[in-house]
């Protein structure tokens, strides 16, 4: 099977990128991912339950994230499913971050030429 090329996933939908960025901090379950996304976006991005799990499903289907068989925290609810980034997910996340960084650089140059 031909391995997918990271840039072929770009541009990532906003929700997918937020979830991938959250998973770069470590393995998390769905509700913790939602909280982290809200926190990292200063409350701007608020994901509903089905949006979140639909996004996770897509990431898992594409091989960018995977469900953990074990539970990281022993005292946590056993029913919760934890997710982690795959190697491909990390590369795609990095590629999207680079793409956005270039875009931000252009925007800053165009909007504030003196400060660039």
């Amino acid at each position, binding site marked *: 099977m031909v391995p997918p090329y990271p840039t072929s996933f770009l541009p990532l939908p906003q929700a997918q990128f937020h979830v991938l960025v959250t998973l770069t901090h470590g393995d998390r379950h769905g509700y913790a991912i939602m909280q982290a996304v809200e926190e990292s976006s200063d409350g701007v991005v*608020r994901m509903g339950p089905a949006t979140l799990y639909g996004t996770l499903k897509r990431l898992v289907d594409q091989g960018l994230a995977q469900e953990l068989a074990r539970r990281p925290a022993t005292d946590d609810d056993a029913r919760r499913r934890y997710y982690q980034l795959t190697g491909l997910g990390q590369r795609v996340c990095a590629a999207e971050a680079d793409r956005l960084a270039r875009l931000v650089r252009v925007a800053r140059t165009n909007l504030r030429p003196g400060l660039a």
Partner: protein
Amino acid sequence: MANQYRLYRSLTRLYPSSFRREYRDDLVQHFADLAADRGLRAAWIRSGLDLAITVPRYHLERLMTEPHSNIALNIAGGLLVAGGLATTLIDSWVGLVLLAAGLGLMATQRSALARALRVPDSSRRRDRLRTAAVLAGIFVTSYATFLLTVGDTWSSSDTILALVGTPAMFGAVGFLLAGLLTPRGPASDPLADPAC
């Protein structure tokens, strides 16, 4: 509180069965976490809005990506053929177009080309839909020009417009179907070594 969870749980029946089977417990757990953290009202506002947006979206995605799409496309093709036959009695031109679109859809559905089209590739999907939009624009422009300039006799400019507009119309339908049949997904890496 338990009633509210039960109500939300029963509302998750609205999702496609594959999604529901896999994530129903997670959705209800998520709703319960939201209610515990931020109150029942906030949980309903967020989950209710989310439900209203994602239910139609996930059904549409399922229709376009799962084998069920075969059934949906066959039904659409059958309806177009039936509509085309019925409309031929009133307006032969519109009826023939509908008939051709229906037969084209059904043929495309069964052909090897259809199987090839279903290889997930987001960029090809975009290209095909963009081409369909351009061809549709050409068709609309030529048809509008034809309507504005048509006289009592058939002129050479009418012939030119028909020669441009008709293929553009069929091309637009073809590329639109091709684009819609192409599932979203990553393109293969052309530089990657298949042996890896």
